[in-house]
């Protein structure tokens, strides 16, 4: 992956996973914190670079978010992944709106030892961190902007006691 520069100065906001800058083209630039690649659902709380890139790919593929990878900034323990995505004007979605949104897409809520998580067995997709802070209620419904998406291993499903529907 190519090396890229970050916007000048500090970002306008910092979350537990990213620093975020406003870009004049109606998008935000997001960089993971140095040496980190976001979070994970399950016993391993921090994602690897590959897991983070898979999360982006799945978010694009499944939820249609135009989340683009720009490249890496820094190296070694200071590596950051730099991406961009559109800004959706709106307010934080409510928990009920998020639940309706996920149920409509055939996800099932599981309350696990690692926290609440949405799982869809049809295509083995798990969505964590579906919280108001990560979902915008915009002009045409909800936009998940920062949920954690993965294809869980059988081991993770077992550890989380997520049982598959019997066929």
């Amino acid at each position, binding site marked *: 992956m190519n090396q890229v520069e970050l916007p000048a100065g500090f970002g306008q906001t910092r979350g537990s996973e990213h620093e975020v800058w406003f870009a004049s083209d109606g998008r935000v630039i997001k960089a993971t914190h140095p040496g980190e690649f976001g979070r994970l659902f399950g016993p391993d709380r921090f994602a690897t670079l590959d897991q983070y890139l898979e999360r982006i790919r799945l978010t694009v593929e499944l939820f249609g978010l135009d989340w683009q990878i720009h490249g890496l900034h820094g190296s070694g323990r200071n590596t950051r992944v730099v991406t961009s995505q559109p800004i959706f*004007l709106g307010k934080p979605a409510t928990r009920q709106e998020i639940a309706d949104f996920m149920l409509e897409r055939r996800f099932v809520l599981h309350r696990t030892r690692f926290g609440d998580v949405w799982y869809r067995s049809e295509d083995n997709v798990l969505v964590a961190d579906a919280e108001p802070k990560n979902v915008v209620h915009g002009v045409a419904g909800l936009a998940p902007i920062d949920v954690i998406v993965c294809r869980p291993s059988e081991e993770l499903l077992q550890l989380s006691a997520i049982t598959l529907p019997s066929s």
Partner: protein
Amino acid sequence: MPFTSSSLEEISLADRERLARMVREQPTVTREAWNEQVKLFEKVGRDTESSLPFWRRFWKSRA
């Protein structure tokens, strides 16, 4: 439930088109509007309850 009989591919495609429409139809995003939105989201941003195990949520609610 408009997606009841849709395939997963159809659901994803509909979401992709809907999000693209949202970007087109919303007002132009200014730095001021973005700053306001950041404040709004930071107000709910510390709520990470869903990532807590149920027993920690239980004790938190009792505290």
